[in-house]
């Protein structure tokens, strides 16, 4: 496509992207550098049906004057980024100086909310992404080998997990693993331990969420791989069969190299999706044991009666940076290939 045609073709999408993605990100970025003004409080008498007390309230007149003068808030620079609820620079320095062994240091650091969430998010990505690729590929290969007649219903059945709304899917599983649910009760019987609970143990909760993630995301990999398999040329495969290549050798040397660009694409999308893991945490009520970066943002915005815009904005920016870092190797590789191809 000539560059000019491409430009006009891309323009509407590009504009929409700038308007609905680019500008909000810039605005979030700016917000992350600001904190609320110092609260002006005053002592007043408060009376309710249970009696009167003297206590403090925010002085609205004074506050609104300050707000009008500086509507964005108090400039805080990287203050929000480095505070304890985010990168916790001070705390980490202190832990480094105070702890005696490296293990104790790691313990202290992983106790900080941001790092706790980061570790869960990375673990989730690390386990879910490769498994999704592998499972999706295996399912695509198997379905590709099934007789055409029954392929339609089988494909529909396979993509069902993707059709089910994530929240509903996780809720169904949540009830099944309840200590009185079908899975939870059977595991208790099997292990002969009436106190075993999938929901109260941190490790088991993580495993449940990861299994759920694989179950939910595999169909996406499967659909893309299945489409790609349809484009594999038959001649080299037939030639390989005549040469006596086994099924495994054919897949390794012909099919995989052919669909390799698609694998990169699926890996990229999966990584991005998994880094933003959120719904299963809500669905499984797993806030206690598993927190992700997206959940931290959600928590700052809605779980408190006081909304922490600065905190949420800072975590959002760091999530974007995190995704960029994760994707960098894949992107650099694609870019290099693109260059050599030219």
């Amino acid at each position, binding site marked *: 496509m000539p560059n000019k045609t491409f430009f006009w073709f891309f323009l509407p999408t590009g504009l929409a992207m700038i308007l609905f993605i680019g500008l909000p990100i810039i605005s979030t970025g700016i917000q992350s550098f600001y*904190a*609320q*003004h*110092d*609260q002006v*409080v*005053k002592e*007043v*008498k*408060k*009376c*309710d*049906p*249970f*009696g009167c007390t003297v*206590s*403090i*309230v*925010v002085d*609205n007149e004074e*506050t*609104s004057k300050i707000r009008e003068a500086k509507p964005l808030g*108090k400039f*805080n620079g990287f203050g*929000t980024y480095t*505070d*304890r*609820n985010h990168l916790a620079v001070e*705390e980490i320095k202190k832990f480094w100086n105070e702890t005696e062994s490296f293990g104790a240091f790691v313990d202290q650091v992983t*106790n900080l*909310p941001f790092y706790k969430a980061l570790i869960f998010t990375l673990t989730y990505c690390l386990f879910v992404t490769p498994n999704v690729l592998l499972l999706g590929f295996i399912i695509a290969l198997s379905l590709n080998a099934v007789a055409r007649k029954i392929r339609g219903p089988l494909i529909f059945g396979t993509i069902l997990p993707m059709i089910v709304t994530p929240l509903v899917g996780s809720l169904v599983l949540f009830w099944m693993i*309840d*200590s009185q649910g079908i899975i939870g009760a059977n595991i208790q019987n099997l292990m002969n331990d*009436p*106190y*075993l*609970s999938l*929901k*109260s143990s*941190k490790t088991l909760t993580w495993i449940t969420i990861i299994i759920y993630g694989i179950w939910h995301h595999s169909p996406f990999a499967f659909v893309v791989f299945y489409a790609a398999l349809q484009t594999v040329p038959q001649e080299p495969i037939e030639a390989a069969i005549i040469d006596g290549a086994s099924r495994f050798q054919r897949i390794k040397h012909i099919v995989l190299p052919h669909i390799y660009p698609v694998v990169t694409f699926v890996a990229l999308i999966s990584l991005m999706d998994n880094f933003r893991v959120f719904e299963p945490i809500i669905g*499984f*009520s*797993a*806030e*206690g*044991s598993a*927190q992700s970066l997206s959940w931290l943002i959600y*928590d700052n915005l*809605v*779980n*408190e*009666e*006081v*909304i*922490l815009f*600065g*905190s949420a904005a800072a975590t959002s920016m760091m999530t974007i940076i995190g995704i960029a870092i994760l994707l960098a190797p894949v992107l650099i590789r694609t870019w290099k290939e693109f260059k050599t191809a030219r």
Partner: protein
Amino acid sequence: MRKILVTLLFLLFGTSAFADCNIKSGSINILANDFPALRTFVETSKQCKGSADFKVTHSSEHNKIAVPALTANPSEFSARIAANSSIVPLMNQDLIRPLDDLVKKYGKGIQDSQLITIDGKVMAVAFMANTQHLYYREDVLKDLGIAIPKTYEEVVAASEKIRASGKMQYPYAAAYKAGWNLAEEFVNMFIGHGGEFFKSGSAEPNINNAKGVATLNMLKKLSELSNPDYLTHDSEAIKVEWESGNVALMTLWASRSGTLLDDEGDPNITKATKLTGPATVGGGNIPAATLWWDGFTLAKNRPDADAEATFRSLAHAASNKKMVADAADQAVWLVEGFVPGPKSIGVIEAVKMGAKPYPMLPQMGLMHGALGSEIVEFLQGKESAEQALKDVEAAYISKAKEQGFL
């Protein structure tokens, strides 16, 4: 405290004039939590809408909607049914209007004790009271010869006895869901130990002390006697546990007693379900519980005509003797004419015992939020009580700094 006793225990024969319902214009749109008493209240106020538009949103997610919806100008809702804690963010952001003039003009049937005044201005009109208190299974306790527990130490002993008898594996239940619910249990228990959340006169946290440790240890003991999934159980979940007969002792909201004692579910369990006051803890004499009121507030960013129409229709419900007589078992009404029934025992006992109201402080929401996530690891046995409390204070301080309280 005396005021509420007067309200609750005596039937006063005052003026019976209802607010008049001749509303000619304006539009009414109410945001409220979703439980039976509030539905009754809003339905009653609807009878008095005159020719005004009337809309209502009942949602258990009301806390998440309220501030953004009332910040808009004109705001989405003309009134918000709030409680001690949820009025604070509205006050912090200056989103609700003083009601003095409206009370003077249209609030004839409203009693003085119903008015929430802050700095001399009426900011809300309360209509019901709530607290968390003990529920027990009379049959189970009787069988094992256990007296009705008065303290949390007795609750622990009783639960251990029930477990040892083999009757129930997890005899105790309370809403320990990580987040708001768990933090609320901490607040109750900490107040029961006589704790103060902030150093006096400042927003500096004050929970990392012996009282905080005692609070956490008691929560842990109770959690060990609860269903192992306790960190995912909210009020609704433990209600279900109770109705399936898995639990013999429970700490739950008074406003939920109606659904526990209704005709649905096993009649034997319903019959044996009894209410008592909240327990004390650690030898303290005030209960480990907080008192709550529910009341209505009016949005600031709404034309005067809407505010007037809304106030008149809500005032009709907030002074309605027929409503409190018909729905006497749904709530502990603060409205004139309410005769407390058996389902109100919890709140009345709590008031008699001198329970404290939930702290109505501008920075309390941040403390509540920090508690909800930072004490989980202690309950899971992954860190010490001191470390958990240190974490709560540190998390709170960062948030309070960002919000400008420190």
